[in-house]
C-alpha cells in the first residue's frame, strides 16, 4: 500500500472504492474512473457490488452500492484486496465499507449527508466524523459535496434537486485530480449520453466534474497527488470489456466462425440476464433470441433449435441449472451441440443471489442421472470469457455435444481492458452437416473425435428419429445390454478425446518445486498475483489455472507429480480438489472461502506461506 506523502508521488498501482446509496450513481462514476484510467494507459480490474434489493430505502445499509477498481502501470489482475482510497457518499456507505479501509487510507466523505437522520438509518449512534480517534486513523477529506455542487451549478437552469444529483461527478472530478486521471473521456461520455437530448444535464455534469477537479487543485490543505506510468502492454486497439459482454461477443464470433445461425434462449436470472439482454440487442447479426417461460423451456428450445441446425445457447445461474439437468441428459444421449452457460452465484438454493461463488462445479460434472459425462470449461477473467465462449462453440460443434461453460458473478460483472482481436483472424470451426447424397447413419462416428454427424430437417432423404431412449448406431431404440454398455463408453470416450485438443498446460513459475497452486475460474487474478509475489520473494511456488475442468488436460497428472504439495484455492467447500484427488490420488489441499466474495491476494499469500513453512 502506498503511504501518504506530499504531492505527485509516483505509484505503481492504486485501489479506489466509490460507495454510496443505490441512487447516488456510484456504478456510473466507477465506470467513468475506470475508462479514464484505461485511456491514461493503465491496466485495470474492477469489481462492482450491487445491493440485493432493486431500490432499498435510501440511506440504509441495504441500499449501499459500491464499485472498486485497481489500476496500475504493471499488469493488474484483481480489483485489489482493500482500497487505498474510499469515497463514502453517506453514513451507510461509510459504515458498511470502512472496515475494509486500512489505517492511513484516504477517506473522502460527503459531510453534507452526515445528518442525524442518515446517521440513524445507517445505525450510527453518534457521528463517527466527530470521533477524534476515527479522524486520526485515516487521511480524512471532508467535502460538503452537495453544497459545493449546488454552488458550482448556480448558473445552471436545472432544478435544485437535479443539481444535487450531479454531486457524484463532483466527487469523480476530485478523485481524478488526486490520481491524475484525464477528464476528457468523461466529458465525451456526457456529450454522447446527453449532449443532444438534454444539453443542460450534460453541461451541469461537466461543470460539476470540473469543479471537483478544480477543488482538488485549489484546496488549502495541499493533498498528495499520485502519478502512474502507463502500463507496458502490447500495442493494438484496446477497449474495456466485462465478462458477460465478452461472452456475448464470443458467441457471436463463434457462430460466425462456424458458419451457423445463433439461437439463444434464456430466462432472466441474476447474474446471467445480461447475456439474454446483450444478444437481444444484436438482431442485425441475425441472432434469434427467445425469452422462454422458464429454464427448462429455454433448454428445450435450444435443443429443438440445435436439432434444426442452429448453434444454440442458454445461459443461467444455479437454480436454472438445476432445472435444466433433465434436458441436459437428453442433449447428451442425443448428442446435440448446445452451449450451456452458468454464471455462478452464491448458493445453495436462492442463497446469495447477488454475490459471487464457484460452487457449481460438481453440479456441472454430475447433476444428471445415469452416467452422463460432459465437457466443462470455465472462464478466468472478463476478457477470457471471450476465448472461453469460442472454445465452447468449438467443442460443442466439433464433438456434437452439449458443453457447460462456467463463469461467475465476479467475472461476469467485472471489467478489464482487452486487446480487441482481429475478427478476420479468428480460427474457423469446422462442423459439417450430413451430406444428403450419402447414406445417413445417425450414430456413426468420426473415428478421431467419436462425434456423430447431424442431419438437419429439411434435407431430403436424411429423415431420421432421435430421442432419449438408448439407441444403437443406426438410430433404432435398443435395450440390448451390450449396446447400452458400448454406447455409454462411447459417449464417455468422446468427451475424453477432447483432451487431445487441449493445449499444454501453462505453468506460472518453475516446472517443479515445493508448492503447486491449482485454480480455476474467477480466482485467476488473485492466485496468480499471490503466487507471483511469492516467487519474487524467492519461494518455490508455481501456479496453474485450469480452463478445462472436464476432461482435464492430459499433462496435468505429470505436472502435479513434480511438486511436493498441491493446494487448490476455491470459492466453495473444495470441489475441484475433490476431482483432482479422485483422479490423481494426490493429497490436494482445499483452500476454501465461502463468503460470497473473491479471494484477497493477501489471504492467499498467507495460506501459501503457511503451506511452505
Amino acid at each position: 500500500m502506498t503511504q501518504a506523502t506530499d504531492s505527485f508521488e509516483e505509484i505503481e498501482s492504486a485501489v479506489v472504492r466509490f460507495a454510496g446509496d443505490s441512487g447516488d450513481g456510484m456504478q456510473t462514476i466507477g465506470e467513468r474512473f475506470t475508462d479514464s484510467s484505461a485511456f491514461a494507459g493503465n491496466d485495470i480490474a474492477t469489481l462492482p457490488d450491487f445491493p440485493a434489493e432493486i431500490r432499498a430505502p435510501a440511506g440504509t445499509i441495504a441500499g449501499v452500492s459500491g464499485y472498486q477498481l485497481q489500476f496500475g502501470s504493471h499488469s493488474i489482475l484483481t480489483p485489489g484486496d482493500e482500497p487505498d482510497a474510499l469515497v463514502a457518499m453517506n453514513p451507510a456507505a461509510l459504515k458498511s465499507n470502512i472496515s475494509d479501509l486500512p489505517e492511513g487510507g484516504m477517506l473522502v466523505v460527503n459531510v453534507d449527508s452526515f445528518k442525524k437522520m442518515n446517521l440513524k438509518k445507517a445505525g450510527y449512534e453518534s457521528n463517527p466524523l466527530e470521533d477524534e480517534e476515527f479522524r486520526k486513523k485515516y487521511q480524512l477529506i471532508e467535502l460538503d459535496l452537495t453544497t459545493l455542487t449546488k454552488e458550482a451549478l448556480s448558473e445552471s437552469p436545472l432544478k435544485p434537486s437535479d443539481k444535487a444529483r450531479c454531486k457524484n461527478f463532483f466527487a469523480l472530478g476530485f478523485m481524478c485530480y488526486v490520481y491524475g486521471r484525464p477528464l476528457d473521456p468523461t466529458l465525451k461520455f456526457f456529450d454522447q449520453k446527453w449532449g443532444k437530448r438534454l444539453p443542460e444535464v450534460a453541461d451541469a455534469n461537466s461543470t460539476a466534474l470540473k469543479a471537483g477537479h478544480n477543488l482538488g487543485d485549489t484546496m488549502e490543505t495541499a493533498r498528495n497527488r499520485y502519478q502512474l506510468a502507463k502500463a507496458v502492454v502490447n500495442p493494438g486497439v484496446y477497449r474495456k470489456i466485462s465478462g458477460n459482454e465478452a461472452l456475448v461477443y464470443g458467441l457471436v464470433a463463434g457462430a460466425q466462425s462456424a458458419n451457423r445461425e445463433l439461437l439463444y434462449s434464456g430466462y432472466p436470472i441474476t447474474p446471467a440476464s445480461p447475456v439474454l439482454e446483450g444478444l437481444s440487442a444484436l438482431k442485425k447479426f441475425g441472432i434469434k433470441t427467445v425469452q422462454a417461460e422458464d429454464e427448462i423451456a429455454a433448454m428445450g428450445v435450444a435443443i429443438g433449435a440445435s436439432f434444426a441446425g442452429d448453434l444454440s445457447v442458454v445461459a443461467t445461474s444455479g437454480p436454472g441449472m438445476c432445472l435444466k439437468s433433465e434436458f441436459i441428459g437428453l442433449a447428451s444421449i442425443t448428442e446435440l451441440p448446445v452451449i450451456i452457460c452458468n454464471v455462478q452465484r452464491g448458493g445453495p438454493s436462492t442463497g446469495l443471489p447477488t454475490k459471487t461463488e464457484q460452487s457449481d462445479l460438481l453440479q456441472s460434472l454430475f447433476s444428471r442421472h445415469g452416467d452422463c459425462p460432459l465437457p466443462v470449461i470455465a472462464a478466468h477473467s472478463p476478457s477470457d470469457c471471450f476465448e472461453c465462449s469460442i472454445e465452447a462453440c468449438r467443442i460443442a460443434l466439433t464433438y456434437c455435444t452439449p458443453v457447460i461453460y462456467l463463469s461467475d458473478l465476479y467475472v461476469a460483472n467485472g471489467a478489464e481492458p482487452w486487446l480487441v482481436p482481429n475478427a478476420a483472424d479468428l480460427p474457423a470451426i469446422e462442423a459439417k452437416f450430413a451430406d444428403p447424397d450419402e447414406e445417413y447413419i445417425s450414430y456413426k462416428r468420426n473415428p478421431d473425435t467419436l462425434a456423430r454427424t447431424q442431419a438437419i430437417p429439411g434435407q431430403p432423404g436424411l429423415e431420421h428419429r432421435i430421442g432419449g431412449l438408448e439407441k444403437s448406431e443406426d438410430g433404432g431404440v435398443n435395450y440390448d445390454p451390450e449396446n447400452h454398455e458400448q454406447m455409454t463408453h462411447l459417449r464417455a470416450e468422446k468427451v475424453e478425446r477432447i483432451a487431445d485438443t487441449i493445449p499444454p498446460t501453462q505453468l506460472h513459475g518453475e516446472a517443479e518445486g515445493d508448492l503447486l497452486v491449482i485454480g480455476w475460474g474467477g480466482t485467476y487474478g488473485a492466485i496468480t498475483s499471490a503466487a507471483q509475489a511469492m516467487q519474487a520473494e524467492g519461494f518455490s511456488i508455481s501456479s496453474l489455472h485450469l480452463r478445462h475442468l472436464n476432461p482435464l488436460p492430459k499433462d496435468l497428472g505429470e505436472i502435479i507429480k513434480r511438486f511436493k504439495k498441491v493446494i487448490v484455492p476455491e470459492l466453495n467447500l473444495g470441489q475441484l480438489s475433490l476431482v483432482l484427488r479422485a483422479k490423481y490420488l494426490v493429497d490436494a489441499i482445499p483452500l476454501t472461502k465461502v463468503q460470497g466474495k473473491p479471494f484477497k491476494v493477501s489471504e492467499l499469500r498467507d495460506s501459501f506461506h503457511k503451506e511452505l513453512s
Partner: protein
Amino acid sequence: MSTTNTEEGSLTKKDFVTENDVRWCPGCGDYAILNAVQRTLPELGVPKEKFVVVSGIGCSSRFPYYMNTYGFHTIHGRAPTVATGVKSANPDLSVWMVTGDGDGLSIGGNHLMHLLRRNLDINVLLFNNRIYGLTKGQYSPTSEVGKKTKSTPVGSLDYPINPLLFALGSEATFIARTSDTDQKHMVETFKAAQAHKGTSFIEIFQNCVIFNNNAFDTVTGRAVRSEQALMLEEGKPLRFGENKGIRLNGFDPEIVELKDGDDESDLLVHHSKTNNPAYASILAQMAYPAFPTPFGILRQIEGRETYEDALHSQIKASQSKGEGNLQELLTGKNSWVVE
C-alpha cells in the same frame, strides 16, 4: 437418398411408414391416429423432408418412431419447448407435436399454455385417453373425479382439466376435438389444423384398451354416436340426433327437440371464427350426459401473427438497415489505441 418430393400428390401414406415395429398394445387407439396422420400428410403439398414430429414421453409419444419423417422423442412434458425451438430456428418446417393427457396437461401444462399463447405455427395432437398408459394405469388430469386406478384405489380427488377450456384460457387460435374412432373426421381436422396459421390444438379422444377401455364409448360408440355426439359444422345450426338441437337460455345451452316443421332459427349457429371466447367456452363445457359432446373445430381465429414470423421479421427489419459487422461489435465505441 436425395429424392425430393415437392410435387403435390406425389407422396402416399407409405412414404410415412417406418420400418420399426409399432409397439402399442393390440387394439390401442393410437394405431388409428397414426393411420390418419399418415394419410393426411401426403395430401398437404409439403415435401416429406419438411415434416418434423416432436413428442414427449408416454405411449402416445412413441409416435415419431413410427413416422418416416424427421422426429424427436424428447422428455416428459417438454415437447412444446423443443417444437418451439425447431420452428423458431426454421419456420419453413411443418412441425407436428404429439402429446398425451399426462404429458401435455400434467407435467407439461405450462409449456403447452405458452406455446398456445405464442401461437407458433405448430399442430398439436393431444391424445386424451384419460389415463397414464405408459406407466401402467394411474389416473391422469383428465380422469373423472372418483376414478379408481392403481394410484387411487378408493377414487381420485382432483377435478379434471377440460383440455378445450384450458386451450381457450390460453387464448389458442385454433381449438378442435376429434376421435380415434372417426378416420374421416380426424383427417379433415388435421388438414384444417395445417391450413390454420398459428398453433392448432386438437384434442383426440383415444381409447386405451388396457387401462381405460371404452372410456369414450358413451359418445363415440357406433350405436350412440349420433345421439350423444354433436358434430360441429361451420355456419350450420347445432343439431344432433334425429331432431335435436342446442339453443341458448341466457348463457346456458339447452337441448330442444324440433318437431316436424319446426324451423331451426332458434338454434345456436356454429361460428368458429368469433374472437370472443364466450361461445367457444359454452361448447367446450358441453359434455355427455347433460349434453351431446361436441366434435370439430370450436374456434379458429385468424390474424394473430405467429411467434416465428414476428421473430424473423424483427431480424429482417433490423438487418435491412445493414447487417452486423463483427469487427465493429468487438471494437465497440470506446476503444483506444496503444502504440
